[in-house]
């Protein structure tokens, strides 16, 4: 069946901001879909609130709406655009839910829009637990027995039917708080009671426990001719009980016989048919009882997912692209397999390598929460590694994680000595799943525990434990060569089992370079093999490589001029999709310039690791060793390190040292901007000011500096991104304590201490320079005052509170620094304004997190231009001659993951905590801000009660805000101090107790839905128990809140915009026409 001609215009809903469980894999899938549909001649309309995505690049779709993804906005767009069809399966759960809601509103029917890819009926059949259960029973499959209860009596009845052990899950709680496993009726009484309390709707779900069962996933595709194929099987190393997003997973499945695998395959196909997914990709999860082989269905997602992104990268089969083509009527046998170019998409990929995915967590960002994994996902990113053995892939995966480790331990960074460590520590860490469990498995093995014992504690399949044991046994053997050279056979074996040179150096008492030389002399070098979907049965047309230690190298090295782009590695807080956006833009720019692009990255979620983004893709860890091997193979003209964030930046000096040509700004300049003393000297030379500061290498020195410049001070390590281990410190004890942490966070580098400019206005500037001319890309004014990390602060472009002269000063200062640092490419500067004085806070001669936002706001593709500049073009040649100051206003708002982390305070500070961002564009600040808030799921109220409780310093400002809310018809509620102040200034308000005073208090009022908006400021200094309880309650009941007065003022303007008129929608193409 050929493609449909009865539809011309298709609307795609994106996934919105990056949040935990919904990351850049949906940019990857959406981008593929946009490309595929445009390729077929369809007009593509796209909505996504996330400006950091490639899919929202204006050339990806015909009409690009960076607007909040709400059913109302989608309805507005449908009314305006009149698409023929809506494709809801590529934008994650957000896309799917929004589409269902839009359909429910009758909008699709009213405007004659056809839902393609999945029907409402099939979506509901898959998502509604009871309907899903019945569907599965109909085809002879089963899901875990479960039931809901709203009281203890029902709990007991339901439990009777299910049988112990039972998982108790409170409905509607944050981050899966509450609940647990009940092994007997006594446990059940306790757990269910507390679960009913924890639930927002006093309901618990009781479910048959399949904890410890083996977990599998199959990625399935179906076309409208009812052809069904399995793209990939995935086996979770971590068994049931840990969210699959938090599990180490392996492709293909390792411990299933063909008989068992085919049963699972048959079941997946039957499920596709029964649920009625007409076309596209789905994901089915199974659990298998390891003792009996009994199989149950855990769930199915009738859409592309994180796992399908992984499966696409693991196999080379582009699931999202094919899903888009199937949605418009093609069948699998009508679509070419791009990888081979000669065979069809109607087949099942086969792997001749092993793929390991390891999640990347960010517990270090949330010290108040326990590093403990459950059925609620907590990881913020993931890395994938490919090897010819599990051992190789696994160790490559660990060193790709950007956690400072170089393999499975034995790298000089092991925290505990397994031989002396307390028995309980290791066992506790094995029994309770956590982000470092695999290191503890090594410890357990080193301390002599048996595989059987470890299996008992972890329920990890013995096959995986045996693989890890082999690594550990080899480590022990390698250790015996301390002070001697390894035999070549052993060296070869160690490399093929994934040991890094750093590990081998550590184990034998040599350094990395010595091991490297030894290897090179003996010719022990990696070869590159192709990911080709077919295990070499057909010739692969696309050069997608991974390294391994074997005999035959398949890298096809060309004679063309080529440039290598180092990507950003796994997403984590502080380093996310923004950098992938820049890397992808760089790749596009290279293509435009006729230069071969070579991408190196280890993040399977990204567009950068799509097989057709660059001319060549090396799916490899971003370490010195791994990158140097590729450079030696490809011999590129230059390497781009300034786009991938801190990961490649950290490699710039080591690579430069061994003579690798770095394109654009040179590592010396990067160093000059990072090194406090050099930087200070430069500012002095240029006559620029920075807050009083000093550097310290120990706590005593830190104390002296702090006394000199006066508290409060900001303490931070050098060479880290995202404000890791950065804090505002108000007194000495705190200073000493924190300095110690900062030194640990960045060993070998001094700690930076700056005067903290309280209540200063902060600005971010992105600029581009070709070495002679520097042009401002955009100036952004932060909405939160200085002290909140720029990644967490909302910002507005162009600035609204900065005088013209000051903007001119900023431009001058930026250009002067660019010239001084010999910037070629991008540069980001952070400024603060206090008392009419401009301070330079930080300069980063590289792409910043705000580059995509600025590009979307101004219509200038900064990263692309920067790439061309790095190749030697001038800005003048490229036609970029002056700063673009748009007539519209753009607001960026951060999206925070607090709902995933029980017990964490939601107060913003200098340590970055947000996972993603949204953009709102409007004619004025109020409209843009309101859209940004909507996009970030802060539902600004247009009526009701505003609760205000602020610290003394903020009272005067709070009064102004209160007055404005009052004028808009809101009631004001305030705690004692604030209330009195407002009373004194004639603002009518209701007084309410702080929690610490007595009931009824503000949290009661929040629970009773008596408060619609919360303004609560506090300092990081006070324990602020009251503030904390208020903020957590706000989070739990989804009540918008501001933790700064500036933020409150912005919300006020946003609400005013919402009250005055309906927000309109407009495409990027229209904005930049």
């Amino acid at each position: 069946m050929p493609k449909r001609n009865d539809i011309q215009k298709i609307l795609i809903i994106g996934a919105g901001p990056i949040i935990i469980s919904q990351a850049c894999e949906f940019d990857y899938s959406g981008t593929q879909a946009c490309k595929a549909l445009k390729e077929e001649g369809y007009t593509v309309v796209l909505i996504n609130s996330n400006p950091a995505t490639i899919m929202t690049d204006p050339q990806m779709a015909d009409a690009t709406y960076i607007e909040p993804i709400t059913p109302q906005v989608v309805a507005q767009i449908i009314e305006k655009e009149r698409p023929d069809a809506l494709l809801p399966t590529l934008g994650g759960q957000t896309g799917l839910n929004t589409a269902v809601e839009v359909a429910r509103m009758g909008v699709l029917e009213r405007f004659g829009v056809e839902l393609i890819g999945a029907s409402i009926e099939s979506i509901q059949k898959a998502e509604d637990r009871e309907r899903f259960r019945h569907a599965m029973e109909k085809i002879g499959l089963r899901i875990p027995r479960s039931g809901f209860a709203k009281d203890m009596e029902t709990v007991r009845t339901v439990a009777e039917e299910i049988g112990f052990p039972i998982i108790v899950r409170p409905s509607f709680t944050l981050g899966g708080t509450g609940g647990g496993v009940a092994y007997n009726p006594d446990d059940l009484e306790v757990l269910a009671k507390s679960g009913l309390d924890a639930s927002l709707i006093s309901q618990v779900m009781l479910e048959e426990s399949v904890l410890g069962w083996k977990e599998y996933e199959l990625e399935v595709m179906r076309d409208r001719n009812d052809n069904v194929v399995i793209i990939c099987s995935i086996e979770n190393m971590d068994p049931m009980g840990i969210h699959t997003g938090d599990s180490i997973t392996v492709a293909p499945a390792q411990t299933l016989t063909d008989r068992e695998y085919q049963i699972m395959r048959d079941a997946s196909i039957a499920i596709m048919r029964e649920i009625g997914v007409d076309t596209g990709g789905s994901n089915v999860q199974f659990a298998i009882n390891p003792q009996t082989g009994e199989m149950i269905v855990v769930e199915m997602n009738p859409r592309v997912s994180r796992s399908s992104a992984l499966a696409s990268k693991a196999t080379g089969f582009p699931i999202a692209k094919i899903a888009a083509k199937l949605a418009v009527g093609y069948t699998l046998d009508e679509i070419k397999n791009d990888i081979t170019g000669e065979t069809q998409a109607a087949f099942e990929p086969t792997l001749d390598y092993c793929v390991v995915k390891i999640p990347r967590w960010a517990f270090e960002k949330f010290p108040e929460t326990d590093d403990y994994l459950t059925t609620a996902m907590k990881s913020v990113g993931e890395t994938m590694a490919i090897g010819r053995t599990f051992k190789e892939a696994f160790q490559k995966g660990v060193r790709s994680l950007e956690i400072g480790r170089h393999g499975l331990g034995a790298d000089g960074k092991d925290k505990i000595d397994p031989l002396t460590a307390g028995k309980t520590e290791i066992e506790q860490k094995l029994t309770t799943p956590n982000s470092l469990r695999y290191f503890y498995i090594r410890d357990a093995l080193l301390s002599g525990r048996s595989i059987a014992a470890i299996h008992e504690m972890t329920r990890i399949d013995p096959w995986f434990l045996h693989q890890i044991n082999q690594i550990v046994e080899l480590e022990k053997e390698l250790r015996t060569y301390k002070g001697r050279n390894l035999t070549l056979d052993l060296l070869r074996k160690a490399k093929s089992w994934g040991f890094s040179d750093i590990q081998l150096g550590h184990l034998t008492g040599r350094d990395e370079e010595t091991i490297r030389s030894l290897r090179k002399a003996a010719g022990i070098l990696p070869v590159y093999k192709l990911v080709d979907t077919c295990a070499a049965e057909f010739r692969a047309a696309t050069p997608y490589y991974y390294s391994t230690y074997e005999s035959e190298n398949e890298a096809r090295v060309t004679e063309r001029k080529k440039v290598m782009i180092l990507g950003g590695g796994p997403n984590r807080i502080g380093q996310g999709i923004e950098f992938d956006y820049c890397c992808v833009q760089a790749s596009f720019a290279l293509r435009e310039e006729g230069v071969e692009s070579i991408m190196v990255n280890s993040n399977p979620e990204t567009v950068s690791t799509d097989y057709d983004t660059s001319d060549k893709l090396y799916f490899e860890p971003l370490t010195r060793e791994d990158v140097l091997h590729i450079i030696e193979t490809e011999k590129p003209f230059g390497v781009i390190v300034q786009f991938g964030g801190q990961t490649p930046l950290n490699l710039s000096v080591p690579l430069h040292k061994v003579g690798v040509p770095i394109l654009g700004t040179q590592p010396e300049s990067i160093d000059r901007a990072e090194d406090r003393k050099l930087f200070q000297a430069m500012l002095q030379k240029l006559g620029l000011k920075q807050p009083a500061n000093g550097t310290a290498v120990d706590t005593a020195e830190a104390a002296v500096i702090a006394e000199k410049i006066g508290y409060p001070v900001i303490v931070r390590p050098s060479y880290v991104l995202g404000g890791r281990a950065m804090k505002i410190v108000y007194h000495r004890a705190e200073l000493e304590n924190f300095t110690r942490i900062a030194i640990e966070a960045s060993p070998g580098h001094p700690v930076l201490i700056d005067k903290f400019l309280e209540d200063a206005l902060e600005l971010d500037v992105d600029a581009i320079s070709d070495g002679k001319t520097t042009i401002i890309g955009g100036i952004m004014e932060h909405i939160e005052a200085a002290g909140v990390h720029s990644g967490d602060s909302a910002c507005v472009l162009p600035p609204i509170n900065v005088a013209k002269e000051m903007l001119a000063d900023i431009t001058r200062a930026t250009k002067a620094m660019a010239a001084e640092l010999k910037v070629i490419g991008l540069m980001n500067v952070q400024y603060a304004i206090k008392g009419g004085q401009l301070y330079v806070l930080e300069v980063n001669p590289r792409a910043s997190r705000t580059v995509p936002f600025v590009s979307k706001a101004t219509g200038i593709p900064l990263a692309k231009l920067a790439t061309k500049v790095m190749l030697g073009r001038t800005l003048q040649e490229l036609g970029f001659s002056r700063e673009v100051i748009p007539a519209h206003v753009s607001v960026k708002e951060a999206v925070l993951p607090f709902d995933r982390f029980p017990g964490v305070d939601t107060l913003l500070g200098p340590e970055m905590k947000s996972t993603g961002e949204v953009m709102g564009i409007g004619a004025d600040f109020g409209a843009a801000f309101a859209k940004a808030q909507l996009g970030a799921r802060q539902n600004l109220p247009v009526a009701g009660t505003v609760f205000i409780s602020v610290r003394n310093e903020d009272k005067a400002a709070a009064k102004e805000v209160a007055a404005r809310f009052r004028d808009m018809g809101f009631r004001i509620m305030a705690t004692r101090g604030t209330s009195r102040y407002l009373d004194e200034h004639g603002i009518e308000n209701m007084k309410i107790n702080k929690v610490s005073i007595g009931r009824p208090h503000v949290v009661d009022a929040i629970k009773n839905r008596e408060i619609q908006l919360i303004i609560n400021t506090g300092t990081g200094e006070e324990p602020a128990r009251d503030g904390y309880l208020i903020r957590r309650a706000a989070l739990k009941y989804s009540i918008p809140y501001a933790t700064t007065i500036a933020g409150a003022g912005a919300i006020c303007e946003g609400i005013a915009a919402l009250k005055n008129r309906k927000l309109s929608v407009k495409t990027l193409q229209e904005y930049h026409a």
Partner: protein
Amino acid sequence: MKALLALEDGRTFPCRSFTGPGETSGEVVFNTSMTGYQEVLTDPSYRGQMVTMTYPLIGNYGVNPEDVESERIQVEAFLVREYQDIPSNYRATGTLGEYLQKQGVMGVDEFDTRALTLHIRNTGAMRAVISTQDLDPASLIAKARSAPEMTGQDLVHKVTTAEPYFWEGRKVPLNGNAGRLDQQIWRHRGKRFAVVAFDFGIKYNILRSLAQVGCEILVVPAGTSAETVKALGPDGIFLSNGPGDPEPVTYAVQTIRNLIGYRPIFGICLGNQLLGLALGGRTFKLKFGHRGANQPVKNLRTGRVEITSQNHGFAVDTDSMAGKEIEVTHVNLNDNTFEGFRHRQYPLFAVQYHPEASPGPHDAGYLFDEFATMMKQQPSR
């Protein structure tokens, strides 16, 4: 233990034997299925061949007594990237290494199996020798060159059963009236379809699949004559898979020719090729064959795609079947080769791939039902 693999074209691969000392020869082929190594090992169609699995980790789930396709390991040697000595699966009763060793079949690993696969893809399946005793490349290459060629060799007589037997979930020898092959032999006449299955190297799962659609199956040696079959008066005739080149199996071609039109015939794999030859078609050797569980086949009657299990080095030449009163019913989507046909006049059909799977997908299981339907519609009396 150190071993060396030498190909007839002079390429060698140093490797390791995980089954102790030995030396063996055969044609090297690759299989791309990621699961089902035990089924592959025991598939008689692999007789005369050394099989390399493209998936690098093999042995993960051990071996068990159920997942076998014949009574012994059939491959000449088994070549993998990394043998897994400690299996994990609730059905496992032993390791792959022990299993091979017990049956005297060499298993080697620790070499670049992808390089070997690419080499075969580029230059074609070829003869090879593996040895732990003779590690001299020149000597081994010479031995590889003197090994028998696949083309022109009748391997069927090596794997076919010596005596007829009934399949009742296992082999049941004929007792009492052995040699009296007549209509009285059927014990479920009228209740089950009486099927004579020619054993050219039949896989157990074909027998299981036939039984499942209601057949009583008498498995007969490849050399059984048409007269004998007719004396048995079956409801249908099944032509099995088997190893190697169909052309030298002239006796079977002749027999089949005499049976065409007599009763419904269903052929799989070698059975398909023999039927093709019997109808006057030609067969040819594929460069490196189809071996795996992901081969897409289009059913031209329904337009649907089946993901199929395959194992064949020879194929029926589509052009040679022109004008033979047949309808091509199935075609391979990867290379457009001939995957199945049906006679326009006589009740006979065959497929090149393996609807019985094992290992592989169950997409084509419907063909056994079609055989049953055909027998129902063409009552033998």
